[in-house]
């Protein structure tokens, strides 16, 4: 109840939405003092009401992007427009309309949960009964009402992140910048947080969130920006990005690299394969097939006939990670890669779909 109240009041007080972009970056560059280019000719437009997920490997420039928008860093090249005006000339004015949660959360451990919210509100020029009412609402939103008078130092990691989110919403921002908002949260915590964020988005809040978690970005964000080495690789709705890979993805694993390259050469020109490319590891080959399950027996037959020993074959629906890999040739994240494949089929034996496979399809449909 309280949460929808919050969304409703925010919607009432927010100025009428316009088609004008909330944020527009044109040819933006950011060079650190040690010469490292955090962002390079970076272009991105965020429209009102977008929930933009920013996806990229570590060091791609995700945090730098948010820090530029929050006014915590100045671009070394290019232009940033916020709310239709150049950010350079706005200073404090733009910061009034932006909520920012860093990876560190930045909670004041010496204050209570409520104290943190009150301080945040006061620094935004709020006071009195309005501030207290809003504080209560936000504590409800993030489920911390019962812990409001406890020292933030005693909070768990998840509670601190939720408190940081509440603090960033105290002034009813028009643009919310979240750096890895769900890191350290369990699955139900993530779902709850996104539920609240989407409700706020419905009320007109524009959100830009970075994440490592491809699945949550796919599920909750209306748009995705894939970034790599300081550049925008691709931008669009998750469905549109995934539509670039039509059909299914097959990952072939061999015990030796020469076998992999031989298999690649063999399969490249087969009619049931849309495209074939070397995988992340030397012993892997990635294939895109319009109909994966139908292609499996044909692949195994061809390889067997040529004396190539296939060790393992994995079939999966394309994810944003696959889109990223196809566009950049580098994996989004080394550690997350193996866990992504929803299905593992032993090539020689199994021709039916596994239960995992069915679940993954349901997820895609919902």
């Amino acid at each position, binding site marked *: 109840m309280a949460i929808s109240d919050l969304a409703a009041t925010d919607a009432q007080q927010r100025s009428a939405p316009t088609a004008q972009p909330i944020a527009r970056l044109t040819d933006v560059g950011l060079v650190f003092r040690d010469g490292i280019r955090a962002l390079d000719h970076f272009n991105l437009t965020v429209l009102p009401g977008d929930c933009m997920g920013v996806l990229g490997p570590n060091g791609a420039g995700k945090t730098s992007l948010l820090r530029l928008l929050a006014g915590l860093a100045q671009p070394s090249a290019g232009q940033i427009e916020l709310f239709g005006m150049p950010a350079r000339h706005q200073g*404090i004015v733009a*910061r009034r309309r932006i909520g*920012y949660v860093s990876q560190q959360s930045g909670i*004041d451990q010496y204050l209570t949960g409520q104290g943190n919210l009150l*301080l945040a509100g006061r620094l*935004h020029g709020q006071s009195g009964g309005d501030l207290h009412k809003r504080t209560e609402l936000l504590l409800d939103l993030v489920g911390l009402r019962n812990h409001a008078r406890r020292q933030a130092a005693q909070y768990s990691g998840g509670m601190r992140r939720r408190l940081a989110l509440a603090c960033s919403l105290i002034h*009813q921002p028009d643009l919310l910048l979240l750096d890895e908002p769900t890191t350290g949260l369990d699955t139900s915590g993530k779902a709850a947080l996104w539920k609240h964020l989407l409700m706020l988005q419905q009320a007109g809040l524009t959100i830009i969130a970075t994440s490592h978690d491809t699945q949550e970005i796919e599920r909750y964000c209306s748009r995705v920006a894939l970034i790599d080495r300081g550049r925008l690789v691709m931008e669009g709705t998750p469905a549109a990005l995934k539509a670039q890979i039509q059909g299914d993805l097959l990952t072939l694993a061999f015990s030796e690299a020469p076998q992999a390259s031989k298999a690649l050469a063999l399969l490249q020109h087969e009619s049931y394969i849309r495209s074939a490319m070397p995988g992340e590891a030397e012993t892997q080959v990635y294939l895109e097939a319009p109909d994966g399950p139908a292609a499996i027996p044909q692949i195994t037959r061809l390889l067997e006939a040529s004396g190539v020993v296939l060790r393992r074959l994995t079939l999966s629906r394309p994810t944003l990670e696959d889109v990223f890999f196809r566009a950049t040739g580098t994996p989004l994240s080394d550690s997350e890669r193996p866990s992504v494949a929803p299905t593992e089929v032993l090539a020689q034996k199994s021709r039916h779909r596994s239960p995992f496979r069915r679940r993954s399809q349901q997820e895609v449909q919902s």
Partner: protein
Amino acid sequence: MSQSSSFTNATFWLFCRAWQKTLRLPLVLALVLALPAVTLWLLSQIFASIHQTPGFSAMQSLSFFAPGMLVIAALFGSSFAGIGLLGDHDSGVLERLTAAPIHRSAILLGKALADGSRTLLQALTLLILLAALHTPIDGGPLDLLSLLALLAVFSLAFAGLSYLIALLTSSTEALMLIEMFLFLLLLFGSNALLPDSLLPGWMSIVSLVNPVSHTVSLARQLLAGTAEPLTYSLTIGALALLASLGISAAALKIKHIT
């Protein structure tokens, strides 16, 4: 909703926040308040026979050391003010404050004022103690108020310097070493422990350009009721200039560190 706090309001709330932080650990506050009194007592014991030393003839040890102690306590407290700032930097609090629609110098000023007011509490405790011990204080109420104001501005100046060093090095270890070095240099190169007449030749030159010496001399004159308005204005003006330079430079630096 596009509001932001005025500079004064933001400074005030950040001042309160710094005090809330101090009050979390009452033991620290108790030690801070006891420090000058304990040191003063120790010094007066060590130098119990100091009357016989040539240059000390007309002085009572307690009233000679008390002003020096007040200034040293202020110097010590504010020298390490930067540690708290680095703590806020490491916990991400500083970044969150920097992202708020407030002037960055308000972040530092609020903190410095809290540190300065702690010095004032120290000074008040010591003055009350001195009165209780029947130490001759010839300065009137106006002199004592001026003394408190002097100590507050002195604290702001050295807190500003400490913030600047903290933000330049962004390392607690480096800050401690640099500040300890400065502290010892300023302490022993001053007339806080010895009268000017007893300082060896080159040290009296150091003492001449040492803000601690000027502040201690002025504090002695204020307690004795012999301070000249001109000396007072010049000293407090110079300290205020130092404070605003330090805090502004640190505020400029804040952008790069967060």
